[in-house]
């Protein structure tokens, strides 16, 4: 199985998880979307040197991941795949901010390293929450929820089609890649020129596909407005779910829970 095959397989795995009947999938997608949005806002509202105070928020993706019965392996792979981008941003901080901030076992740690850790932690928390949201809801239900919550139609429609045709284009790219491999007798890696040619071909095929899809949409009465069936109905349990998590986020934001627990454990007071 090559990289593209594996990527396609993993993408499909998210849909399979979302299609299962789990405690998380039973909630209204709007509730999950709103709670995740509150979670992300809470995470980004902490100051740049907050690390320990962010840790209690890891409970949210952990609990939801368990509720969605999402394999941890999927989670870690997605985090690893996206981590180089964040590492590039985070690792610039120790170079720019060298102010000593704390000492651990006699070792001075600069503010840059602390803020780097904070960036990585925030990234892991937000991405985990987003992964669980997609795995526990499904892209289609998520787009329908966005539309119901008043997100611009053009955005939800683009997102829906992006998700649908990602698979078609990935399969197309896979076929092209196989055709290239079958004729690559020298066993040399693909050069930049070949990459460019294949990407260009893929783009042309995508344009051609888009034209045919548009024709198929017109043939079934499409007039520019995408109408969706809204199956979800907000229930009391969704209100409880949203309220409980938002209250927890507020608590974690207002009270430094690790510090409070530390004080409680050591018997010292805290203010």
């Amino acid at each position, binding site marked *: 199985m090559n990289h593209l095959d594996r990527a396609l397989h993993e993408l*499909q795995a998210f*849909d399979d998880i979302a299609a299962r009947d789990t405690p998380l999938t039973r909630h209204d997608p709007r509730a999950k979307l709103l709670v995740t949005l509150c979670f992300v806002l809470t995470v980004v509202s902490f100051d740049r040197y907050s690390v320990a105070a962010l840790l209690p928020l890891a409970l949210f993706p952990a609990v939801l991941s368990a509720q969605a019965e999402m394999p941890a392996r999927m989670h870690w792979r997605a985090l690893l795949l996206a981590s180089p981008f964040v590492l590039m941003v985070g690792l610039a901080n120790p170079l720019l901010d060298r102010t000593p901030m704390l000492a651990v076992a006699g070792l001075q740690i600069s503010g840059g390293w602390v803020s780097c850790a904070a960036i990585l932690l925030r990234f892991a928390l937000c991405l985990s929450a987003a992964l669980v949201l997609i795995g526990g809801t499904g892209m289609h239900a998520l787009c329908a929820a966005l539309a119901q919550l008043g997100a611009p139609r053009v955005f939800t429609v683009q997102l829906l089609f992006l*998700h*649908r045709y990602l698979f078609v284009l990935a399969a197309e790219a896979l076929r092209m890649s196989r055709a290239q491999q079958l004729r690559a007798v020298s066993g040399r890696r693909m050069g930049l020129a070949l990459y460019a040619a294949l990407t260009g071909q893929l783009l042309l095929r995508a344009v051609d596909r888009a034209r045919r899809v548009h024709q198929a949409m017109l*043939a*079934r*009465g499409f007039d520019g407005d995408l109408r969706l*069936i809204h199956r979800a109905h907000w229930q009391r349990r969704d209100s409880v779910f949203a309220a409980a998590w938002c209250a927890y986020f507020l608590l974690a934001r207002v009270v430094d829970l690790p510090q409070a627990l530390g004080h409680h454990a050591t018997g010292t007071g805290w203010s």
Partner: protein
Amino acid sequence: MKVAQPDAAQPGEPGARAGAAIEICGLTHSYPDGTAALRGVDLRVAPGEALAIVGANGAGKSTLLLHLNGLLLPGSGNVRVADLLIENGTRAGPSPSTLRELRRRVGFMFQDADDQLFMPNVQDDVAFGPLNLGLSEPQVQHRVQAALAAVGAAALAARSTHRLSGGEKRAVALAGVLAMTPSVLVLDEPSAGLDPASRRTLIELLRGLPQTRVVATHDLLLALDLCPRVVMLHEGRVLADGPTQALFADEALLQRCHLELPHVTAASATGLR
């Protein structure tokens, strides 16, 4: 060579003038690059008739079909489908209301089911057309269930469209078309890429439909199985129009259209002469 002129058809027979489901007169179409795809096509299809359109690649089959749903407009001539006239009268073409009504009455199934299944799951894809017709959600749900049941795909309702097999995709694409309750079905290469069992299922399914069916295909066995009448297109013109078995028994005609019957079937078709 025209084996049987449509005008020769008797009232009540396939191709009869009165109450035609489809009537095409002098249809021409050229693409922007100058390729003349249709060069004066005349055709009449009776209500409930199953008509096969066969021809080599580039003969104009798909171009002809795209005119039946208003996806292409005539260069000259006119097309009357399900009592709606489409002609090259104005630069803007038919009014939006005419096109909307045309697309309600004429269901179009594309060659590549992936082009047609654009919604992420089966239920939503089948609901796409009925929702565009402005039906209420309960009505849409009813139509979706009925259409999926009609193609034997009720169990697929909750599945993601990209996880379906080729045969399932084809069945769901057909359900999406049937959910709009069209009176005319236009099918472009419906059996392309299907395994023999899925192909057989599709043929049986199409055979049982009451709508007028126009099928463009290279699959001459499907044409033989499903359509009593066939039109052979060659370089944008109708080369022959008549009973399928009779035309398929004419080897010279098949050769001229760059067509070939599978060996065993060719022998049996010859035996029918």
